[in-house]
């Protein structure tokens, strides 16, 4: 047994040193200024035209999708929606810095990462309309996407649970010897959960190649960040876990891309977690069930609207000469139509057969669920009008 000494790195002092807030300055990486110009002493990441356009288009597409789906919810076509307006750069540009083999474990406001991976408008709709084409088989509320083929873990509502799960997933990737990492998205609110603490500490001790990506958007529903924590954001916690940490301007796509690329490099090379705190702002309501006028001012929102991440990035793309007006317009109008069409199609697709009420609880249906579904079917047959969605499928 090796002798251990947990004091080996500890220095000694002879008067009381109180370690206080502000002892560490954790600056935020910015590459584009608020107007989208490259900052003088900053370097833009190496990123080709195609990828640049894909990032921009994904952000615009998601903004559009959000608008349409918020409207669809108002019209009563879907029951619930959750927009990511204002945070498009944080999620799109981070996803763009990953490899397709990397697992994405998200909170719920990262639809842009999923779109970037290639989730289609139809797929979005099938999930949100809980129809039989939804891979979740209509079991979860709208926005709880997931796609095994795209390495995007199905979303779960309980906050923070995906954080230690991401550590475990990444540990498995390491054991298996894949060259992939896991990225785990969460809000600054969710970072208050005990699971955050467990997940980061375990990842650090067990050397898991995972990127913890915190979207600090200032609010958890109505609770502002200053009632959520008293420290310097989430980044300052990395120090306590011995986790390498980068703070980044979440509204600067280039900065997010750079930071995530760097984080991925470190995670893979050193088999260790990296924490990224992306400073951004939730311009949207928390969800369609929320009304932010109850807890924040229009003026505050307006200030942030000026820092719109899409415009900022678009100007840089334009400066690069990579902005293709025509392609852009085509993409937008195509998307608009595709969304409209997909809504119309998806809402007409039936829900899953009643058997899917009991499938997937276990690998096979056990005796008691078999009894319950048999009884239920007989009941539906007796009262078909009361169960219109499934009656016609019951023989």
């Amino acid at each position, binding site marked *: 047994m090796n002798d251990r000494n947990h004091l080996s790195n500890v220095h000694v002092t002879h008067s009381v040193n109180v370690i206080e807030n502000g002892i560490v300055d954790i600056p935020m990486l910015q590459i584009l200024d608020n107007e989208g110009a490259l900052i003088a002493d900053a370097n833009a990441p190496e990123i080709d035209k195609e990828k640049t356009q894909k990032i921009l288009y994904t952000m615009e597409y998601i903004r559009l999708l959000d608008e349409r789906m918020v409207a669809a919810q108002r019209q009563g076509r879907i029951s619930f929606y959750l927009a990511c307006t204002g945070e498009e750069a944080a999620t799109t540009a981070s996803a763009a810095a990953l490899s397709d083999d990397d697992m994405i474990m998200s909170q719920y406001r990262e639809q842009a990462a999923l779109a970037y991976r290639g989730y289609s408008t139809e797929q979005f709709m099938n999930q949100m309309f809980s129809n039989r084409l939804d891979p979740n088989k209509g*079991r979860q509320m709208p926005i709880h996407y997931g796609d095994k083929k795209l390495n995007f873990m199905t979303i779960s509502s*309980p906050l923070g649970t995906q954080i230690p799960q991401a550590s475990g997933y990444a540990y498995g990737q390491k054991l298996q010897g894949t060259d992939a990492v896991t990225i785990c998205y969460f809000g600054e609110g969710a970072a208050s*959960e*005990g699971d955050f603490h467990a997940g980061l500490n375990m990842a650090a001790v067990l050397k898991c190649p995972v990127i913890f990506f915190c979207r600090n958007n200032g609010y958890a529903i109505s609770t502002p960040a200053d*009632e*959520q924590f008293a420290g310097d954001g989430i980044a300052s916690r990395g120090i306590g876990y011995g986790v390498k940490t980068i703070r980044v301007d979440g509204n600067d796509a280039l900065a997010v891309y750079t930071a995530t690329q760097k984080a991925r490099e470190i995670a893979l090379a050193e088999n260790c977690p990296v924490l990224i705190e992306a400073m951004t702002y939730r311009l949207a309501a928390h969800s369609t069930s929320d009304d932010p006028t109850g807890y924040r001012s229009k003026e505050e929102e307006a200030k942030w609207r000026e820092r719109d991440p899409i415009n900022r990035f678009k100007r840089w793309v334009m400066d690069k000469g990579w902005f293709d007006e025509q392609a852009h317009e085509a993409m937008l109008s195509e998307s608009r139509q595709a969304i409209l069409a997909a809504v119309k199609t998806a809402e007409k697709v039936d829900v899953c057969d009643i058997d899917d009420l009991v499938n997937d609880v276990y690998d096979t249906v056990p005796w008691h669920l078999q009894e319950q579904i048999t009884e239920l079917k007989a009941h539906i047959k007796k009262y078909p009008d009361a169960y219109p969605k499934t009656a016609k499928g019951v023989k």
Partner: protein
Amino acid sequence: MKKMNLLQAINDALILEMRRNEKVVVFGEDVGHFGGVFRATSHLQEHFGRERCFNTPLTEQGIIGFANGLASQGSYPVAEIQFADYIFPAFDQIVNETAKFRYRSGGQFTCGSLTIRTPYGGGIAGGLYHSQSPEAYFAHTPGMKIVIPRNPYQAKGLLLASIRDDNPVLFMEPKRLYRASVCEVPEEDYTLPLGKADIVTEGSDITLLAWGAQMEVIEKAAQMANDDGVSCDVIDLRSILPWDAECVAQSVRKTGRLLINHEAPMTGGFASEIAATIQDKCFLHLEAPIARVCGLDTPYPLAHEKEYMPDHLKTYEAIKRTLDY
């Protein structure tokens, strides 16, 4: 008397009690300035200040841990868990701490002044994580009381009794009734007894037992059965722990039949405890097996919510089966 919905009745009870007892402190996620995502705590911060009504960080285990300490210190915490589906991170603090605090210290320290409020239940298109009815998870925990009101009148009286009761109470609010259930509620102070069931309708052929939002369901089924000439004793259990076995047994001794309805999955749901106890207490009176009309043994679904729910039709059919046994 004033017409109130269930949320208003709860808000009214909280305001009344915070006025009456300055040691009452209300907190949870978003309960402060905003008044909670359902607005049950509206205006409390305004009236009583930030020290007595405040937002907490987003940590259920922290909320209940904090509440346990605060209660043991002598305050009257009323802690909100935003959805019952999110109470599980606090399970250890509730089951190992809150419930055992008094016992383990020989009565020196207690969390008796703690009340945990949480909206529960389905029927709102909430899917797996905004629909659960976890009462049975807590009912296996000596030391806890569990209370569930069925309407605004019950809610105010039971909530006031819960806050004042010298035991920790888990107060579960049927969220699909928050705005849907409206009735006359006294504006003054009143309490309703904990641990006592409430006989809603008297009948002679079968006893129907439920709690919370499912009361409407069994009442509707009772009406259907009534049209067939079947007379139902309809009982609201109100307290899940300790529960009023004597009231239920008395009714079953009269009717000879019992049906229990709850939203939670059948297996290990609280209906099993009731059935086990009543088959023992009323063995010679039972003319048919005790029927359980419950959620299926699956996570709470979305697209198939209607099919999953133990609705009035399933209840009505079970009444008939029980009578025809």
